[in-house]
Each structure stands twice: as C-alpha cells, then as structure tokens.
C-alpha cells in the first residue's frame, strides 16, 4: 500500500513536471526553466556522462547486442540504434519528452506490467527528470555514436514500415508516379519468354516472371525488359539460367519491390554488383538455393528490405544473424524447419477406418 502511494506520488510529480515543461514551450529562452524543483542549473545534460551510464546499467542487458534477439528488437547501445528504435518505432523524439517511448515506458507506475526497467529496478524520479530534460533539450548525443551496424533510414521511414506489412501500400504509392508501360514493350517481353501482368488490376507496375526451371532463360532474356525498367515491381527468375552478368541490368529496375532469383547461378560477385545499385523500393530478395556465402551479404543494405531468403545457400548461421542485426527491419529466412522424418505408424490416412466402417 505504501509502495503504491509512493509510485503514485512519483508519477503525479513527474506528470506535473512534464506539463510545466510543455507550458513553458512558448517561452523563447528554454534555458530559463527551472526543471521542476531543480536549481537553475543551466548546463545542458551531457549524454555520455549523465544518460549513458543509466542506460548501460539498467537497459543494456536486454537492449544491446549482448542478446541475440534484443527485447522488442530495440537496441540502446548506439546512437543510430536508439534513434531507429524497436518494434514500435523510434525510442526518442528530440525535443518532445511526451512522445519519446524511452521516457514514457520508464515513467509508468512501478507496478505497471510494461514499466521499464522491469523487475522493480525502475529509475529514480531524478533520473527520469534528467532523461526528460535531455530529450527536451534536443536529445543531443554529443560526440558519442556507440555501436554501429545500422544506417539511419531516410525521412521516408514510414513508407518502409508500411512496406513490410502491406506491399500494396507501396505498389500504390510507386504506381502513382508512373505511366502505364507501352503495350509494344510488353509484347516484346512476352515474346522473349516473360509472363507480364500488372501487380494489381489497373496498376502501371508489372510482375514479370520467367518459367521456373527453364534453361532457355538467360542473361540475354533480360534485354527485352529494358523498355519496362521503371514499371517492373516484381521480377521472378526462379531456377533459370541467369548468372552474375544479369545483376547490373536488374540493378537498373528503379521500382523493383520483389526480386526472386532462387536456384540460379548467381554468386557473391553478382550480389555485390547488385548491392552497389540503388534499388530504393526493394523489399523482398529471394536467394534460396544459390551459392551465396556470408561474404556476399556484407554490402547488402537497401533501405526498405523487409525479407531476405537464404535457405539452402552457403550462408552460415552467424552470417544470417549478422545480416538480421544489421538490418533490424528485415526478416532473414535462413532455415527450413521441416518436421523430422518419423516412423511409419503415421500412415493411417483413414484407410483402416474405412474398412472398419463397412462392417
């Protein structure tokens, strides 16, 4: 009971303080605020000296590369990791403590299920105030960058998160700025063995597929796609005879969202060539059944990449992990978890039963 009261008081105090901060937002001199009881200590919060120790002590155990899968996919051990945030998006919104989950989750009542840090090891009120002030002052990290391994996404980040859940949102968005592909170009591609169809009815974006397993589909087959370059959103070359030489041409498909080249002769060299190209919309990259190794993946960094298929390649488990860590918004499918083969007693299929029924 006493504890409950205490936590209630803490929360109330903090809420009161936060609102006093926002009340002062109109004041032109931000330095004049007194920090809710704190003395007029006008020195700005130093992240490395004042905030980082708190994070290191209370958060890194679960939210750093110490874990193979950081909780909530959130890492706090690097500047970019903090800004990119976790499952629910960014953890810190500079200048806005009220919208920063890092503070919000930590300011919940002590006995709340979602309070951070968990297990009763919550922050002290003063510590929370310090974090709030740091955010309010613009969340300046100073010279500290911490652990690298993630590039800050461009400002269109919202689109990227949409792409992972609903490809149609991105098809619609991309389609809006395009004209329909000329029918003659489509006819030409069809002649070269491609199956061409709109990604959805009425969309200028195209799905282009070549027959799976066809030896007659080679690097040269892609030449016929040149006039369709801007319109191709899905390109499927499953089990065809294309090689690394095709990658440069594929890299020119500016609006490619899904690339399927499983079971082809493509190697690390080809993947590196591809990685050098700009494919700003690429969300799905299917490479299963190729001879790709870890080395081929190191350059891979498309802003919207949401899924990479690596089953049945030469990529190692740590290599796949590394990619997943480097691209936290990307699901890396490295394994095929088929059930272990078992015994014959599982036959059944109702044959025995049917016989019985006749009796």
């Amino acid at each position, binding site marked *: 009971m006493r504890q409950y009261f205490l936590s209630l008081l803490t929360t109330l105090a903090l809420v009161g303080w936060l609102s006093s901060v926002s009340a002062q937002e109109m004041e032109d001199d931000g330095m004049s605020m007194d920090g809710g009881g704190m003395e007029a200590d006008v020195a700005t919060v130093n992240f490395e000296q004042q905030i980082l120790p708190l994070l290191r002590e209370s958060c890194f155990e679960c939210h750093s590369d110490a874990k193979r899968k950081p909780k909530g996919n959130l890492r706090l051990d690097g500047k970019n990791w903090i800004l990119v945030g976790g499952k629910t998006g960014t953890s810190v919104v500079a200048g806005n403590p009220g919208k920063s989950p890092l503070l919000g989750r930590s300011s919940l009542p002590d006995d709340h299920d979602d309070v951070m840090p968990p297990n009763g090891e919550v922050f002290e009120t003063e510590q929370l105030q310090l974090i709030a002030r740091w955010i309010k002052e613009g969340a300046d990290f100073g010279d500290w960058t911490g652990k690298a391994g993630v590039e800050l996404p461009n400002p269109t980040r919202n689109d990227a998160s949409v792409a992972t859940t609903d490809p*149609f949102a991105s*098809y619609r968005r991309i389609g809006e700025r395009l004209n329909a592909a000329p029918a003659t170009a489509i006819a030409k591609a069809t002649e070269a063995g491609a*199956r061409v169809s709109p990604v*959805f*009815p009425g969309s200028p974006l195209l799905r282009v*597929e070549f*027959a*799976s*397993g*066809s030896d007659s589909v080679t690097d040269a087959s892609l030449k016929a796609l040149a006039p369709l370059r801007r319109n191709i959103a899905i390109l499927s070359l*499953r089990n065809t005879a294309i090689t690394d030489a095709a990658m440069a041409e594929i890299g020119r498909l500016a609006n490619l969202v899904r690339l*399927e080249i*499983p079971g082809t002769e493509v190697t690390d060299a080809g993947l590196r060539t591809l990685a050098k190209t700009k494919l700003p919309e690429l969300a*799905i990259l*299917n490479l*299963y059944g190729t001879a790709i190794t870890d080395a081929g993946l190191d350059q891979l960094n498309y802003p919207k990449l949401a*899924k990479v*298929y690596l*089953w*049945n390649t030469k990529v190692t488990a740590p290599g796949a992990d590394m990619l997943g860590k480097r691209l936290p918004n990307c699901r890396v*499918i490295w*394994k*095929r*978890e*088929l*059930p*272990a*083969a*078992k015994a*014959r007693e*599982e*036959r*059944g*299929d*109702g*044959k*025995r*039963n*049917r016989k*019985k*029924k006749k009796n």
Partner: protein
Amino acid sequence: MRLNHLFRDFDPTTRRNFVTGAAKGLLGLSAMPWVTRLANAAEKKGVVPLKPARARNVIYLYMAGGMSHLDTFDVKPGAATQGPTEAIGTKADGVRVSQHFPLLAKQMDKVAVINSMNSNQGAHAQGRYYMHTGYQLRGTIKHPSLGAWLEKMRGRVNTTLPGHVVVGGGANTASNGFFDASLTPLPIGDPTAGLSNSHRVEHVSAERFEHRIHRLEQMNEAFRAKYDARQLKDHAKVFEEAIKLMESKDLEAFDLSQESDAVRASYGDGRVGQGCLLARRLVERGVRFVEVVSGGWDTHSENFDRMGDLCPPVDRALAALLADLDARGLLDETLVVLATEFGRTPDIVTDRNLGRNHYPKAFSCLLAGGGIRGGQAYGKTDAEGRNVIEDLVGVQDFNATIAYALGLPLEYEVYSPSGRPFKVAHDGTPVKALF
C-alpha cells in the same frame, strides 16, 4: 488420353448427338448460352473489376467427413465434452491445439484458426458442396467451386499446366460447375503415381504420334467447320493443352521422385503428405489452386482412437508444407486453407465406443499465408464447444475471405446457362480482421 473413348462412342451416335449428348456427358461440357458468352467477352476486355490480391495461389486441404473441432483446433480442457483429448500450447501466444498436432504447433505463428465456423448443412454431400461453392446443393444447377472461380477470373499463371488440380478427391468435391469444361479441375488419385497417361506409349514414335495428331486435326477441322459449336472448341482446347503438357518440362512437377527421400518422409508418406508435397511443386510452377483431400473424418464411432490415426498425417503434412513454402518465399502469396464440411457433436456418443456425430453449428477451419496474419485464434465457441458466441463465420463468409485474399470481386455476377446471376462467395462477407 480420352481419344480412344471419344471414337468408341462416336460410331453408334449421330454427329448431332455427339455434339449435344456425348460431349456433354462424356467430357463434362455444358451448353453455354449467349449470356455467358457475353460475360466471357466482357472479361476478356478486362471488365472484371479485380482487386489487389494478397494471395495468388491456394492450397486447400479438405478434411472429408467432418473434422471434430473439439479434438483438433477448438480444445476445451476440463470441459465435459472434451473427452480424453488433451490441449497443448503452440508457438503463438494464446493459441492452443489438441495433442494430435505437435508439429503444427511449432508453426502456429503462421496460422490463423477460425473457431467460429457455422454451417446449416448437416449431411456430407450437402455440406461438402456448400463449403466448396458457397451455394446449397440443388437439382437445377451445378455451381463452380472456388478453384474454378479463381481460374475463370484470374486466368492461369502457367498456361502449360492445368489451372487447378484436386489430389485424392474424386469428382464430387471440386467442380467447374456451369463454367466451361476447360475449367474442370485435373483429378489426381495417387499423388505418388505422377500424371497418368501423360507419356507417349513406347511403341509409338514421336514422328508417328505427330502424324496421328496431324491426321486427327485434319478430321476435326472439317467437322468443326461444319458444326461451329462452343463445346467443340472447348474440347479442342483441352486436347491441345494435354499435348502441350506431354511435351513440356513442366510435366516433371508431377514427379515426386525428384524430391529427396528425407523431404518426402518429412511430409509423411501417406496420401495427404505426398499430396501436399505435390501441391507445393505445382504451386511453385504456377498452378493456381490445388486441393488435397484427406478422407475418413466421419468419426461416428471410436472418435478418440481414430483421431490418433487421422490427425498425425495432416499435422505432419501441414507443418512441412508451411515450413517449406516459407523457406522458398512462396507463403506470402500462397493461401493455405484447411477446411471441412462440419464439426462433430460436443456430446460424446457412448454406445459406439465414444463416437461423435455431425455438428454444423460450430466447427473450426484454418487459414495461413497469403497475407493472413498468423498466430491468432478468431471467433469463439462456448465453454463446451456447442455454440458460436463470438464473431460467427458462415460458410459464405469463409469463402468470401478466401476470395478477398485472392482479390476476386465479391459483387461481380456471372450468369449461369439459365441466366441466373451467381457470385464467387455468394453473399459472404470477408473477415478482414484475419489479414
């Protein structure tokens, strides 16, 4: 192929009868009046208002006979109606399945369970027909099933392979209904036997075969010029496709011996397992709709013993299928369905060694892949599995959900030969919460 039969039946009938009678009965061709022809023409112009589709393909596992919901996916531990079947946890929080699905339990993060299915058809033929077509069985018309609708509206992906295939089903499940004969599903009895009659017999050389086909063409040409009937064109199309497939590399899709023993064993060596493996191979090569039928679920007697026989092959097959599709990047665009005609009575019939009878009031189906949000249980029955108490999903709604995933227009009407309008999922409303 069917050629021999064709000629055998040709002699005793007149030519005219051949057109109207033999073709209809023997080949399943139905008369297509001008209404449908107009509809077809309209579709060819791209008038069918297709919508964005999450799924492209469907693998439809059908549990023929009526799968007990309490002993599979709507477990009620502790309830009097549960009997000896136990519940186990799954990879998805809050989703439980019965003890018979330990392998699928590990894949439940990919699966949405619907526990609030409800049908008004309590007999096998009627229930099965309703599930497949969204319409009630009646004598005046034959409705197309979902696979035929999909092929009709979306066309084929791979024009060499059949647009839709039924493995181990027999003719009474999936059907082209009143659509063109070319939309009839290809039936495959034994998935391990390959595609029967698809190879040229040894003593006929390639040249000779070609010569025969050429001769046939000559004969047909004259005949077709004289009798310009749609059914004849349909037949010619089917025939032409069969020959094209005979010569195609795609034929190897049907050859399960190309899979390693380990993979085949992983799917299970029964008909369901090998059927699912075949389904995966077909979908990979552009077949839109594959139904795999598992029989024997009509557990009026010895329900609990028999669940122990019936479930494991399906558990294994479905678990392997989901893992395999996922690793290949096919699950995003392939909707995997597990359906049945009805559930089974919560009350256990004691005088038949613990059986369960037909129960359409509440049952369970599964959806996975194809844009479905996995790891969720949708809808609820009461504590004993008797009545749906939350989010009822009717048979038409279930089919509408499948059609919605495929981007098929739910309101679009296609006319039957008698001029009546029909829709892909009848009047169903898709359950959008599943996506």
